[in-house]
């Protein structure tokens, strides 16, 4: 039986001529695990929201959506509430009440169940999700991952037939994200619930899913198994291909070349790998009984910095938030040179963000020295630090927006800023600078919009614009790629490159290993309040065995010093082509 049948569905938003969804035809069968992917703004969310009447956006619709054979609009609200579960992006915004148990019961209360039934249902759910230990807790005590799990459990308590998830892990750190996705898988396999999910983390989701649907500009362009879908994407040379898991990208790039007959036959026999494990096997098979011409890439060295002085120098720094609390930063020493993209990676709660706050002077160490541009940081006035030296982009870009439109917001930051002669900037000059920045960040089209109407990635860019208007020499970015899709990450990297060319120093704190490996000049691993190793990305990641990129993990048994997809493809081709 099909859960949803969508026939020739079109959708346009009010005051907007372009189709948000165009000619969508889709049949979703009971018990399937379906991943929908596509660039931001391709219509994924619009499609998902149209699958539940109360969440459906206003606009012009045509075509039909059937839920178990009945037009969705005719299905009672009560049945929709219970049978179609919908998990939204932000874990915090979805939680309504202050107690975990109350939140679990919320949906069941709406459906009008009696206390006895609710008691049983939430006990079941709490046990299934392993949340019985924090059942009585206040919601504010939970971590982000726990909160999203609570949202999921609260919806599962209503026993839905189909679970729709709209980028549920975009706000989570990698470890909780994987945990969350594992739970989704468990729901799918053990309860038979149909899953429809949109995700950026395709590396984890694709291996789980039965079908992958790729959307572009409101249309479904591919609807197939994950392997077939990615092969098709590769053939189409579609930008979304860059969002696919590493093994698929390597596979597609490698077979896209002329090889000897024997090799070609071999390639045709081997299937497209999705997981790292499959990728390893695939590489092993390809290079079975072959002698490698080149085994390792040359390592780049850290450029000697004898002549240049470090712009930031941290020496033996210790920090704790309170006298009675444990140290968060322990004996930290690091140096950052001008024009570098310095990446700090590491797990949750290791003190990365705190380190950033120490650099920017928000927190002050109780021991040790922080020297910024040759001067001890505590000799600067706050104003000096933040007008001209530092630009800090917070994790939550919404914490910067004040005004009604992006343009006003950008102008607002120039309020009372002075030119070189110490005079206030005239409005015209301010506008020029805003346009300049908007041009750099490609947000000209967004200038007249309300900051909160922008998507996550766009908000990030607008906030970055605000920070850049302060003309910082050092840019501190906290999890800048959180919630960005791979496609936009590339654009973002280009923006950072432009800044680096202007000799701006950039420090990034991130969970995103792939991003740091690809674009960083130096990477440091943070652990237990301290930097364990620092090196250039290729040395850094090829030295690690677990905390490293997927490309490295899938090829380390054959090649050496390989970090990015490009490296693997290069070595494969070098060794295969005659």
């Amino acid at each position, binding site marked *: 039986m099909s859960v949803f049948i969508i026939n020739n569905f079109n959708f346009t938003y009010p005051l907007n001529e372009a189709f948000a969804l165009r000619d969508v035809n889709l049949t979703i069968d009971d018990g399937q695990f379906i991943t929908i992917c596509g660039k931001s703004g391709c219509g994924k969310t619009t499609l998902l929201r149209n699958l539940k009447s109360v969440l459906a956006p206003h606009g012009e619709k045509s075509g039909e959506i059937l839920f178990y054979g009945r037009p969705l609009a005719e299905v009672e609200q009560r049945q929709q509430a219970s049978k179609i579960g919908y998990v939204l992006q932000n874990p915090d*915004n979805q939680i309504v009440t202050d107690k975990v148990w*109350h939140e679990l019961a919320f949906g069941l209360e709406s459906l009008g169940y009696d206390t006895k039934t609710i008691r049983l249902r939430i006990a079941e759910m709490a046990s299934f999700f392993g949340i019985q230990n924090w059942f009585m807790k206040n919601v504010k005590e939970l971590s982000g991952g726990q909160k999203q799990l609570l949202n999921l459990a609260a919806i599962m308590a209503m026993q839905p037939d189909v679970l729709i998830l709209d980028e549920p892990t975009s706000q989570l750190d990698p470890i909780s994200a994987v945990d969350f996705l594992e739970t989704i898988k468990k729901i799918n396999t053990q309860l038979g619930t149909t899953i429809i999910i949109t995700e950026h983390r395709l590396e984890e989701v694709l291996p789980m899913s039965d079908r992958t649907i790729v959307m572009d500009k409101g249309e479904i362009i591919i609807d197939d198994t994950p392997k077939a879908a990615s092969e098709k994407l590769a053939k189409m040379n579609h930008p979304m291909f860059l969002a696919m898991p590493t093994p698929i990208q390597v596979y597609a790039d490698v077979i896209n070349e002329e090889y000897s007959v024997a090799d070609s036959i071999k390639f045709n026999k081997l299937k497209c790998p999705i997981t790292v494990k499959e990728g390893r096997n695939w590489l092993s098979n390809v290079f079975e009984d072959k002698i490698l011409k080149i085994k390792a890439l040359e390592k780049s060295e850290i450029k000697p910095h004898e002549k240049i002085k470090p712009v930031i120098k941290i020496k033996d720094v210790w920090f704790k938030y309170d006298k009675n609390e444990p140290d968060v930063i322990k004996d930290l020493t690091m140096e950052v040179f001008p024009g570098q993209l310095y990446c700090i990676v590491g797990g949750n709660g290791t003190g990365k963000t705190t380190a950033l706050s120490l650099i920017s002077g928000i927190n002050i160490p109780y021991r040790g020295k922080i020297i910024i541009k040759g001067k001890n940081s505590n000799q600067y006035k706050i104003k000096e630090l933040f007008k001209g030296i530092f630009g800090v982009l917070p994790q939550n870009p919404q914490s910067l927006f004040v005004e009604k439109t992006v343009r006003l917001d950008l102008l607002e930051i120039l309020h009372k800023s002075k030119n070189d002669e110490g005079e206030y900037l005239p409005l015209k000059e301010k506008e020029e600078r805003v346009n300049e920045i908007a041009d750099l960040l490609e947000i000209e089209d967004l200038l007249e919009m309300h900051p909160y109407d922008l998507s996550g990635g766009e908000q990030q860019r607008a906030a970055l614009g605000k920070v850049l208007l302060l003309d910082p020499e050092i840019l501190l970015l906290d999890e800048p790629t959180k919630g960005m899709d791979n496609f936009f990450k590339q654009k973002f990297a280009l923006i950072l490159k432009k800044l680096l060319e202007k000799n701006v120093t950039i420090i990034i704190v991130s969970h995103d290993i792939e991003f740091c490996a690809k674009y960083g000049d130096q990477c440091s691993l943070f652990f237990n309040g301290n930097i364990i190793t620092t090196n250039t990305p290729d040395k850094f990641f090829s030295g690690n065995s677990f905390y490293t990129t997927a490309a490295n993990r899938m090829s380390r048994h054959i090649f050496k010093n390989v970090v990015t997809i490009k490296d693997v493809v290069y070595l494969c081709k070098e060794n295969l082509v005659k």
Partner: protein
Amino acid sequence: MNDTFGTYHPIINFIYFCTVILLGMFIMHPIFLCTAIIGAFTYSVFLNGKKAVRFNLIFLLPMMVLVSIINPLFNHRGMTILFYFRDNPITMESIVYGIFTGIMFAVIILWFSCYNEVMTSDKFIYLFGKIIPALSLIFSMVLRFIPRFKEQLKIVYNAQKCIGRDISSGTFLERMYYGIKIFSIMITWSLENSIETADSMRSRGYGLRGRTSFSIYRFDSRDTVVSVVLIMLIILVISGILLGENSIIFFPLIKTSHITIISVIVFIAYFLICFLPIILNMIEIYILKRNKKSGDLDVSVYNK
């Protein structure tokens, strides 16, 4: 200190506090007043420990004195004139009356300090969830949003500091300007993010007819016993009031009603009400001690 009384059903907690606070507001008979203040004081110290003692000394005592002084200054009724203050007679009756009012004030404040500890928000939400469901949901949501608001406030504060807007430094006008900016950001943030909360609520069927109210509280046999006892005591005290057993007249001369058997019974009932939480706690401590001893024996039996 773990309070047993707080683990009883919320309805009992609520009725109890309504009773003691309302009774405390008008019973002025010295014996009753003393019982109430000792009961309320003991319970508040039991609940809050040192904090309560400090609060009582710093805040309550001066307030009591203030109330006791204000009354005779403006109230010149009474027969026994002690002295004149600025040509106004100060009477013994009004002084006594002032002191009693001060004690009564303290009793009410003390009961409220206990109430604040025992009647936690979720109990309140439970009690009113069935009568005023929408408002108690609002209450619950507000309690959920407040910590989020505070968290976000910190984030915004730091983010603004990082673009050179620090409330802790600069001229007064600048700091004011930055403070307003931050508050303004917070207003937008909370209004805008609430839209997704609304989605989440409607997605889970809020607004359908026939919403029920779930709770984790259960009215068990222990609650039945205590509620029966409590209601009987309340009836006794109220009938005593109706019979005038606790009346005291201050003006023109202080006069209390005679002590009779009935008034003794009413007094005992009031005593039991005021000390009910303490008594329940004592009983539990006693049982736990006894069980622990027999439990030790049991374990030794198993060990063999």
